[in-house]
Every structure is written in structure tokens, then in C-alpha cells.
């Protein structure tokens, strides 16, 4: 049977980590046994209120899944989005590493799981249906951004 790693480092147990990832739309359809490897490889990070989680222009290759708290996605002073548990930020970087297009700041004490590109690539090979989730996520993000642009003065 497919071995499942035990207790990763951090405050969350493996089951809680998988449950947190299952709340993320793009991972929702992936079986727990597959997601357990991602959860185990993911890194827990905590950000205090006002702390910068991601900086515009930085070249990184990981995404964050928000477990607790809320974050603001912004470009300079302009807020693009506010996100909470079950959302992801920085997913473009794991698909095509490039300078970050926006910054992300914690609005309150926030707990995230960081998923690196290599882990994400493994997951795509293991569960190709993930691509549907990624596309849905990107489309909804683009729509939300377009609506925001239309509302902007």
C-alpha cells in the first residue's frame, strides 16, 4: 500500500494539514493518500499582522495555502484581493517561475502551508486531474481581477 509519512514538523499534524489542503479548491478533488505526501513536504509558516508574506518582484517558486487568518494581495498601496482560509496565493510561481506580480501581507496572525514547485510538479504527475483545478482557480482569479480593474477609477 502507498506509504504515508507520519507527523511532519510544525504545529499541525499530518491529518490537519491534509484537511487544510482539502479546503483549497484546486486540491479538493485529490485523494488524501496522494495529498498526504504534499502535506508532509509542505512547510508551515506563520506571519504576524502586517508582516509581508510575499513581495512583488521577488523570484520564488512556491505557493502558499492559507490555513488560518487573512491576507491582503496588493500592488503598492492598491488592494487587489483579500483572502482567507482555503485560498492560495502565488500559484503562478509554481506553474511558471517569474517575478511575483503582487505583494501579500497578513491582515491578522496567519498560518500558511508553503508548497514548493518540485512538490507541485510531483503532484501534477501523480494526479493529472489537478490541472483542471489549477485552470478553474486561475480563471476565477482572472475574472476577479478583471472585475476589480473595471471598478477601479
Amino acid at each position, binding site marked *: *500500500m*502507498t*506509504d*504515508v509519512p*507520519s507527523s511532519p514538523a510544525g504545529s499541525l*499534524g*499530518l*491529518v490537519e494539514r*491534509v*484537511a487544510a489542503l*482539502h479546503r483549497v479548491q484546486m486540491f479538493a478533488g485529490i*485523494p*488524501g*493518500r496522494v495529498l*498526504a*505526501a504534499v502535506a508532509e513536504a509542505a512547510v508551515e509558516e506563520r506571519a504576524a499582522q502586517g508582516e509581508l508574506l510575499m513581495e512583488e518582484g521577488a523570484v520564488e517558486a512556491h505557493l502558499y495555502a492559507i490555513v488560518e487568518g487573512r491576507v491582503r494581495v496588493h500592488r503598492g498601496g492598491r488592494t487587489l484581493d483579500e483572502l482567507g482560509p482555503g485560498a492560495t496565493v502565488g500559484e503562478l510561481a509554481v506553474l511558471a517561475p517569474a517575478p511575483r506580480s503582487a505583494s501579500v501581507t497578513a491582515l491578522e496572525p496567519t498560518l500558511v502551508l508553503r508548497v514548493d514547485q*518540485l512538490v507541485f*510538479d*510531483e503532484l*501534477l*504527475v*501523480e494526479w493529472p486531474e489537478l490541472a483542471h483545478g489549477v485552470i478553474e482557480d486561475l480563471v476565477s482569479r482572472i475574472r476577479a481581477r478583471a472585475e476589480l480593474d473595471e471598478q477601479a477609477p
Partner: protein
Amino acid sequence: MSASPARGVIPLLTAQALAFGVTLALLVVPANALFLNAYGSKWLPATYIAIAVFGSAASAVIAWAARRMRLVQVATASLVALAVLYAASWLILVAGGVWVSAFLLVLFPIALQMGFVFIGGQAGRLLDVRQLKERFPRIVTGFSVGFLLGGLLGIPLLALLGSTEHLLLATTAAQLVFLGLLLATERRFPEVQAAPSKSSPEVARPSARLLFASSLVLLLCAYQVLSAMGSQLLDFLFFNRAQVRYSGNDLTRFLSGFTALLNLADILFLALVAGPLMRRFGLRLGLVLNPFVVAALLAIMALVVAGPGAATFGFFALAGVARVSDLVLTDGTTRTSVNASFQVIPVGERLAVQAVVEGIGVPVAIGATGAVLLVMNVVHLGPGAVVVFGVLLSVIWTFTGAAMYRSYTRALAAEMRPGSLTAQGVELGESDAALHALLGSDDARDVRLGLDLLGGFASTPSAGAALRQASDHPDPEVRVRALARLAATGDSEAAAAAAALAGELARSADPVERRAAASALGSPSFIDADSRMLIGLLDDRDPTVRAAALDAVGPEDAVEPEVVRRVVAAVGEPSTTGSATAALRRLGDVAVPLLAEVVARDPPPKRPRLVRAAAHAASEHPVVFAPALEDPDRVVVLAALDALDAANGVVPPEILDGIFRDAAAHAARALAARTSLEGDNGSLLRALDDEIDLARRLVIAVLSVRHGERVRDAARVADRADGQRRALGVEALDVILSREEAEIAVPLVRRDLTPDEQAAALARIGPPARAQEEWIAEMAEDPDKVWRSSWLGVCARHAAGR
């Protein structure tokens, strides 16, 4: 087990059928009594021919109207017209025109067919195919009860009204009740008003050629014609024998009693037998049972004629039994099966086809039977000849039923098949200008696309010129690929230049240039090149270079063990899995021993990926897959099955049986455990859902290997579609699979069922009920190794620890 139809649909349709039955009983009793009293039974075949003429004309009018009007409009107009005809007939009879009884006899089967077209048409719009199979017999029961009530009402009504012809007033009243119920159905369920499509004239107005281009429509028509001929023949045989044995009031009393018995048998069969029979055996039996039973009874009657003779009571009793059997099976299995078969015909064409098949085919069949019987009368052939003709007819009818079932399954499979996205091949001649524009572009991406599209046409003079132009392109990949293409045409100068450039690029510090070198190695001009360059690129630190080098691996590299080893190792790397799998396929048999070793040795997380890759390379080699198919990890088994299925590999039947049994038991166990869990067990519930899904995938994979890709098509439709289409998907699975397979697969595939309903459907093969704590303890420890899921164990231990 299917989702219930909207509340009120079945009662309203049943009430319509009941009123319809009362109407027809109150039509046929006075029509027969008046006609037989006036003209006797010898002219009955002549009325059959009249039915053919007027029936065809009536159905042509209905079909014409159906293409232009809504179902309810056609039905309303027809039912009003019939009510007017009944009332007018009463006036004519009161005025002494007994000839109108012949007209009423002719009108009876036409009204019968029309009524069922309208009720069936409404049912087809309000029920899906599964609901039709299960509920339509109950609707038809309403007709039988109505017919029985109408027959029984005839006696007191006759006493009340004083004369037979006055019964037609009651006929008219019952007809108006039927009409009222139809309009009430329309008001409550506006979807019955589905109009013919205006956007597709071919669909809205199907020509006869279009309709009969379908083998299913042809067979449906033939089947209905043969069914009507068989029923008419049995009807005639019975009346003929009854007239020999009874006369005058005795005949009337006997016919009344027999009609009551006939309808009682019909009601009991429909209420108690037809539904379970159709649920259990489906159309496979529904289409052949009626003709087979009729053929068998007629064969026995033929033996009786050859022995004791047609005048015996035994022959008469057999004629009665055959008449009863035919009626109950026509109502209980044949009509339901035919209505279900219509569901695979697009909705826009369905009513028109139904009107043609049932409205024209049936009257013509009755007329043809009349003509045959008249000819037999003219040449003085007795009942024996009628029986022999009936045997031949019912044998052909049985085979037609079997052929229709096959056609139905094919039509269902075609309906399930997804559309193909395969593009037509590029015609160089027609695309020449566009191709040269691509090859001459400054944009390297355009030139690469041009080189890809060039395929095997590089030897043409114009292509050669375009390639020479591309070989001077600033982009190194374009340059080396263009040179390689030229080299492949026999240009030795280009070959030397390509080799030199590739070597230079392979040593570059820029991964883009190394990738260009790797891409060039795939060209035929590099077949004899030094394999050290390829091996070096296969070991490159950049995964995109390694993937390009893997793409360049060809069958000729199978002689290099170092290349084979690197390709097998690359399967385990996510960034190169796809390219390595394709390379393995090109290397072929030589990679098999190494693959078998790696599949057996590698750690569990990588095994499914390796198995999938191995199937593409070595689907004919059981040495690689036998261990994977018997792996304790069901994920590995699924990977092996899916990959072998995709590669058309062979799986021993006993192994398939074992996987199917294990997956079915696993699903039943997981569902039983799931239904016992209460409270906050989210992660464990989710893990169990994953196990149920894994079992479901295994079941579908096994069935796909056994029965072909159509199982996956049907499962996909049953899983993802809604309403009528989902019901068609489930129906397709029902007809493709054996009963034992369907009992397991269908509840698992149907996502419209709740886990409790799925668990109930699989309870037969599931474990006995247990308390939540017992289930959690078993999943956590798995003492009998039945769960074999580490993740489920983790979730169970987590649930137990809270």
C-alpha cells in the same frame, strides 16, 4: 433504484390511462356487439384492411401535426376529434345507420395507438429511461384497470340507457375526461409542451429517408409491425374458435367473461410481475419474451392441429392462453421495452418516429394480417394454416427482437461516446504558402512550428530552399534542426555542419543551446552519431535538456545499455516522466528486464508511475505486470490495469476476477463503515470516500478490460451528466454488463445515490453492521489486511485519539 419522478407525474399519467381504458372498453363492446349482430365474423378481416387504410392516414396526419405543433396541441386536437366522432356515431346509430359499427371497429385500434402515443410521449418527456422502465408498467396498469372497469360498467349502463348504441354517450363522456386529465397534466408540468426545434430543420422535420437510415428505427418499425400482426392473428384465431363453440347470447356472455379474465390477468401481471421482471432482466428479455412465448404456444397449437385437430377444446384453450399471454406481455414487457428503446432517439425526432412506427406500421400490419386471412378464406385454408403462418411470423419476430436489442445497445454506446478531437492531417499542397511563411519568419517559434509541420516533405525542392534559409536562422535550435532536416535528405555538407553545431551546442553553458543540441539528436541524420553526446545530455543538470534528450531517444539506442538505464531512471522523475515513458515505448522489449526490476524494487510512491510507464513500453510482457496486478496496494493495481487497458494489454481472466471481487468487497466495506460514522469524523469520512472512489475506479477498469472502452464512456456519462442523459448512461451500463457486474458497478457509478443508498445496494456483499468504535479500531489496526491503506489507518488513529 432510480431517483423518483416529480410528484404527481405517475398519478396523472395513470389517471389518463385509466380514463383511456374506460373509453376504449365502452367503444369496443358496443362496436363488436353491433357489428357481429349485423354482419357476423366472416367480414372481420375486411375491417382489418380498413384499419390499415384509415390508420395510416390518421397517423400521417398526427406525424405532420407533430412536426409543427406541440405534443399537447396534437393530443388535444386528436382527442376532441375522437369525441366528436363517437357522438356523431351515436346519432347515426340512433337514426338506424348500423353500418357505422364497422367504422367504430376500425376506429378502435387507431384510437388505441393514438392514446398510447400521447401517453407515451408525455411519459418520455417527464420520466427518464430508468424511470420509464420501472414506472411505465404501472401507468399501463391504469389502462387495463380502466378497460376492465369499462367492460364491467357496460352491463349496468346498458340496463340504465336501454340500448347498446346509447353506450356511445358514455364513451364520449369518458373521452372528455381523458382530455381533461391531459390538459391538467400540461398545466402542472409545462415541460410536456416541448416543441419541435426551430433551429434544426433536419431534426424538427425528419424525412423518411433520414428516419429509416437508422437501423434501430428500422428494427423498431419491423418489431412493432410483427407484434401487431402476431396479436391480430391470435385475436382472430380466438374469435374464430369462440364463434365455433358459442353463439348468440352465449357468445356475448363468454366474451364478456373472457374480457374480464383477460384484463384481470393483465392487471395482476403488470402490478406484480412486469416491474421486477424488467428491473431484473431489462430490455434483453423485454424485447424477446413476448414473441418467444407466442411462438412456443403456436408451435404447440400446430402439434394439436396435426394430432387431435383444431376443433378440440385443447386447441380452443390454447388459443385463449395465447391471447392472454400476448396481451399481458405486450402491456407488461413489449410496450415498456419499445418505449425505453425510443429514449436513445434524439428528442426532436422521437414523436415523429413514434407516430410513424406505431401509427403507420401497426395499422399496415393489421391490414396485412387481414389480407392474409382473407386469402386463406378464399383458398379454404383452415385454422392449421393460420397457426403455421403464426409460428413463422413469431419466430421472425423473436429474431427481430434480438436484433433490435443489439441495435439498441449499439445506439446507446454511440450516444455515450465522446466527440473526437482528432484533427485532419495537414495537406502540404494546400498549406504550402503558409508553411513557407512560417519557415521564413524571423520569429523562432514560427520556424520551429514550420519544422514540426514539415514532417516528411523536406525532400521537395521548395522545402529544401526553405530549410537552407532556416539553417542560417539566429536561433541555434532552429539552425541545428534545419541542418539536421537537410542532412536527412542526403545533403552530406549539411550533415557535417549539423554534427559540428550539435557538438558545439551540447558543450554550451546555456541550457537553451544544450536543449537545441538534444532536439537535433532526434533527427534521422544523427542515428549513427556518437551515443556519448546523448548520454551526456540525458545526465544534464537541467530537466528541460534531459526531457529533450529523452525525446531524441530512438529504437536504435536500444543497443546502448547506458541509454536504457537512464531512460528507465527518468521515469521516476516528475519533470521527465512523460518524455521517458514515450522513450521507453520506442526502445521496446530491450527495456523490459530493467523495468521489471525497477517496478518490483522501487518505493511505493513511485510504483504507480513506473507501472503506467511500463505498460506503454511492455504491455505484452506479463513479467512486468503480474506482480503489479497482484500488488497489495490497490493504487498500483489500478495503475497497472488502466495502463494495460490503454495499451490493449492482456490480463488473465482469473486475475481480473480477483481484482473485481476485491474491489467490490472493498467498496461494500468502506460504504458500510461510512454509514456507521457519526459526529466530527471529517478526515476519516473523506478518506473512506477516497477508498470508495478507488474501488469504483478499479471496478470500471476491470469492466473496461472485459467489455471495452464503452464501459468507460457509459460510466463517464452516468457520473457527470444529469437527468435523461445520466439515466441513459446507467441504462448503457445495464445493457453492456452482466447482471452480477451491474449489481456492483451501477450503484458505485451513480453519484446521484447517497452513500446510504449505495451501501444498501451493496449490502449483500458487505460485512455485517458494526458499531463506529469497532470500525475505527479495525481501520486503524487492519489486523486482517483488508483495508491496506496507510492513509486510512492514519485518519482512523487520528479519529480514535480525539
